[in-house]
């Protein structure tokens, strides 16, 4: 594994990753009214409700079980979403989490390189299932640039927090660009040109997730709680 600029790798422990995703879930749940409003403009209006159901179940599950590795955290979040949400987002967001850790050896610390590797696998899983590409006005428009940013940061030996900041900015930029796009999937597809001017709800959730991951991890750093290899 490559060393970071200062020669040490920062990482999150399994416990910290669990708390991180509980925080991410809470932030997405808090955004329910916004997500509902965005999705009502061009979709079914059920995205915020679905994400709330999914993350509520995921958080409940994470609090109930003994989490021994990071793989379990991702798997449980994914399964909670797939089993409880319904709609397209249940399968797609659930697949993102399940595919992230599918066929991976046991992971007990989350470095930048590992995180980049997980989200790359998650992205590939979502694309294999949903068939969407960048530019189709879906969650991929925010996810793909964030994953690219993380991969580049790994190559450049960037610091974890710095890398998460760039990923978060790229997700937001990708989200912003969905406003210019015609939709290729879901109910918004039938709106044609009328979807232009509206951002995609799934991409919004991805952007909120990356923003809250960055916030949480930079807070850990500020508090001196990040771990070093």
């Amino acid at each position, binding site marked *: 594994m490559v060393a970071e600029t200062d020669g040490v790798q920062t990482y999150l422990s399994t416990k910290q990753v669990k708390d991180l995703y509980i925080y991410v879930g809470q932030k997405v749940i808090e955004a329910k009214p916004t997500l509902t409003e965005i999705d009502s403009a061009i979709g079914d209006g059920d995205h915020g409700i679905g994400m709330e159901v999914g993350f509520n179940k995921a958080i409940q599950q994470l609090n109930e079980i003994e989490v021994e590795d990071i793989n379990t955290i991702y798997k449980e979040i994914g399964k909670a979403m797939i089993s409880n*949400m319904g709609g397209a987002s249940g399968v797609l967001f659930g697949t993102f989490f399940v595919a992230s850790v599918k066929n991976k050896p046991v992971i007990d610390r989350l470095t930048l390189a590992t995180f980049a590797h997980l989200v790359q696998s998650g992205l590939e899983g979502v694309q294999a*299932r949903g068939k969407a590409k960048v530019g189709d006005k879906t969650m991929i428009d925010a996810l793909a640039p964030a994953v690219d940013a993380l991969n580049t940061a790994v190559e450049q030996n960037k610091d974890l927090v710095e890398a998460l900041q760039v990923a978060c900015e790229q997700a937001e930029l990708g989200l912003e660009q969905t406003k210019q796009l015609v939709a290729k999937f879901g109910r918004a597809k039938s709106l044609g040109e009328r979807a232009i001017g509206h951002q995609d709800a799934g991409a919004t959730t991805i952007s909120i997730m990356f923003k809250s991951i960055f916030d949480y991890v930079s807070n850990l750093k500020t508090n001196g709680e990040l771990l070093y290899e």
Partner: protein
Amino acid sequence: MKKVINNPENVVNEMVEGFIAAFGNDYKKVHHTNGVVIKNKPNRVAVVTGGGSGHEPLFIGMVGEGLADGAAIGNVFAAPTPNTVLEVTKELDSGQGVLYVYGNYSGDVLNFDMAAELAELEDITTKTVLVNDDVASATKEHAFDRRGIAGDIFAIKIAGAAANDNLTLEEVARITQKAANHTRSIGVALSPSSIPSTGKYTFEIADDEIELGMGIHGEPGVKRTKLQTADELTANMLDYIFDDIELQENDEVCVLVNGLGSTTLMELFIVNRKVVEILNEKGISIYDTDVNSYCTTLEMAGVSITLMKLDDELKNYYDKPAYSPYYFKKGRG
């Protein structure tokens, strides 16, 4: 919009409970899911349908004898979870496979496909027929992109009859696919429905306007016009179908005039009167007609017209008797 409900979050659960409370002699709920299956598990290929709620009596009302054996339903206008589809599948599989028949929507396809993968892990073979009868939802070149609306009724009817004939899964799928390929629909909306969880209307439309081709979740249609007479409207709607499927003199069709929720039978019969007149003028023979509200959009007002072009094979399966509390054919031939 006023609705007779309790907590909006519980509408689907409570609806399924009420359905089972009424028809529990013949149906049961699949544990921990909003899946409904017939009580006597068939020893043959099983037929499963499903989709979002809010279209009642579709989908649970199309579960019955000579129809679907089970239905997996989701929240209002939202696809069922893979788990729901999988549990219904496991409940019904006799080792001879399960056919999924449902309308072509991204969410439904994702969830049913995922369920099919999970079923495969449990050694259950599935096949899928997507219904895409709505001619207003995409051009003929992009017919694979079209949505499924009331055409589901014909596809499920044929699938159930073919399965009852103890055919293989491949054969049941082939015949059902043919029924879907031979079916075209178009709808018109007069007023919107409101979703229980948000209380909001799915679209806005002026009192004197209608929207041709609007989908069953309020998806935009092809044309918004001033209100027309039933005769004008029916003729305009049928033109879309005639432009899309080749129908010649002496061809035989089944007709379904379907209400979208709050449109009265009186209006549906007035539409049907004109449908018959136009088909007669063209020399197209009407083999059977159904006038009912099977595929609805909560309390939306509007109507859809569906034609299924018959051949001998489809006619044979259409003729088989079928029964559910919401759909029945006496059977003939």
